[in-house]
């Protein structure tokens, strides 16, 4: 059973307010409909969902770029970038090159800002690099830098020692 709004006497009251009135702290109840409550400044109109605000903004500001994104198609597997976004799966290895420009921001978000592979390389490609110790040193240097950045001096010292060993060995 709903009480009618005390102000307009028409719509059902859905906002119920209890005022504590000074000086005696007397309680006074008010029952209002949504519209009247808004008029009295008790409630605020519901905000437009953030997503739709964002979508409108994106549409206006980066519309042309979005069109390019949507229409870019991989010549090898035929997938469009829009299809990829909808299903979350790429269509073939070539997509990484074809969509490179649009993928980088996604990769940054997914991988903590990093977009360049570090680590294992297939045996047949690694053989092309003449001296493996160089890449190993570069990798150790990078880890040393990040350890120092995190103030993890214990690991940093260990990494520095490993690097020294490799360098003396190479000399």
């Amino acid at each position, binding site marked *: 059973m709903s009480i009618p709004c005390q102000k307009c006497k028409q719509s059902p009251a859905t906002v119920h307010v209890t005022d504590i009135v000074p000086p005696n702290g007397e309680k006074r109840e008010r029952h209002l409909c949504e519209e009247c409550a808004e008029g009295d400044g008790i409630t605020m109109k519901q905000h437009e969902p953030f997503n739709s605000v964002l979508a409108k903004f994106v549409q206006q500001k980066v519309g042309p770029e979005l069109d390019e994104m949507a229409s870019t198609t991989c010549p090898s*597997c035929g997938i469009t970038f829009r299809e990829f976004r909808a299903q*979350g*799966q*790429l*269509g073939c290895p070539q997509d990484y090159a074809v969509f490179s420009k649009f993928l980088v921001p996604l*990769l940054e978000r997914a991988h903590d800002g*990093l977009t360049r*592979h570090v680590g*294992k390389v297939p045996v047949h490609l690694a053989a092309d690099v003449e001296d493996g110790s160089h890449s190993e040193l570069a990798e150790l240097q990078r*880890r040393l830098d990040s350890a120092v950045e995190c103030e993890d001096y214990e690991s940093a010292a260990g990494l520095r020692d490993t690097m020294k060993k490799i360098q003396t060995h190479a000399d």
Partner: protein
Amino acid sequence: MLIDDLAKRPGRWLTQEGPRSDVVISSRIRLARNLENHRFLSRADDSERRHIYRALADAVMECVLGEEALLVSMEETTVLDRQLLVERHLVSRQHAEAEGCRGVAISADESRAVMINEEDHLRLQCLSSGLQLDELWTEINQLDDALEQRVRFAFHEQYGYLTACPTNVGTGIRVSVMLHLPALKLTNEIDKVLRAARDMKLAVRGLFGEGTDAIGDFFQISNQTTLGRSEAEIIEDFGCRVIPKIVDYELAARKSLAQNQPYQLDDRIWRAHGILSNARTIGTEESLFLLSHIRLGIQMGRLKEVSIETANELFLFVQRAHLQKKNSAAMEGEQRSIARAELLRDCLNPSSR
């Protein structure tokens, strides 16, 4: 080797107790790989899928898994057997429930399982008990090298190993451990710890990976970022820094329970024992929940009547598919609950042994 052979015993890899196995049940490393010059699976038609399956199944069986290995074509396998593989963590739930030409190759001791045509063409995985990530990396790296002698994987100079989903690109590595954290749960500290893990960009999942609940106080924690850091770095960060810290929190919580609430702790453990050794009908979830407290009691030296091997086995055998395999019959929910209670009584009452 047949699937039916698997059902009778726990995986051989799980029966050995690994380092820190009081908290770390198991470690797992998996690598995602795709063949070059082939489309990813979302775009591959049936004939390309079959071609990929044959090429990879041959390569995997010949050079990776040894003689007694088992190759399971999921298309030709019953729902019950597929569920059994999920319960043993040999395939993902998604792989079991998907459609089309796909399969898994499993080594005799179940420490290696290679899914073919899951989300990527190849998902290599190595498992071990306890916390043994360095050993697993050495092993899986060698498997990967051996496979690269036979097939060419899609690789890009900047992006590394290419995967169907860009969240796995680069190393394609997922390092995960299954943790048993009952004391953190009992002391209500679990949320705090898991939140900290998530803040460190780690994924926290339940007993069966993606989209499953943490039944029985088991939590699977794994890395999420795969690009821009080397395998060694990811493993070191995870295995030497993150996981030992969580293990220490759990052990501290156990100690605090023993010191501050010994009666309440023993009450939990012994009530669990009481229910499990007397119930006449019981569901999976309740069994796992109570077995968790039993395992806690064993690890803390407060329950000596049950061996850790028995507890570990029960975690597996009370599950749906294992229960039906053991009884050699398809059973409805209610029958299963009765059979489960019987199994638990048999294993937990010394007099009936």
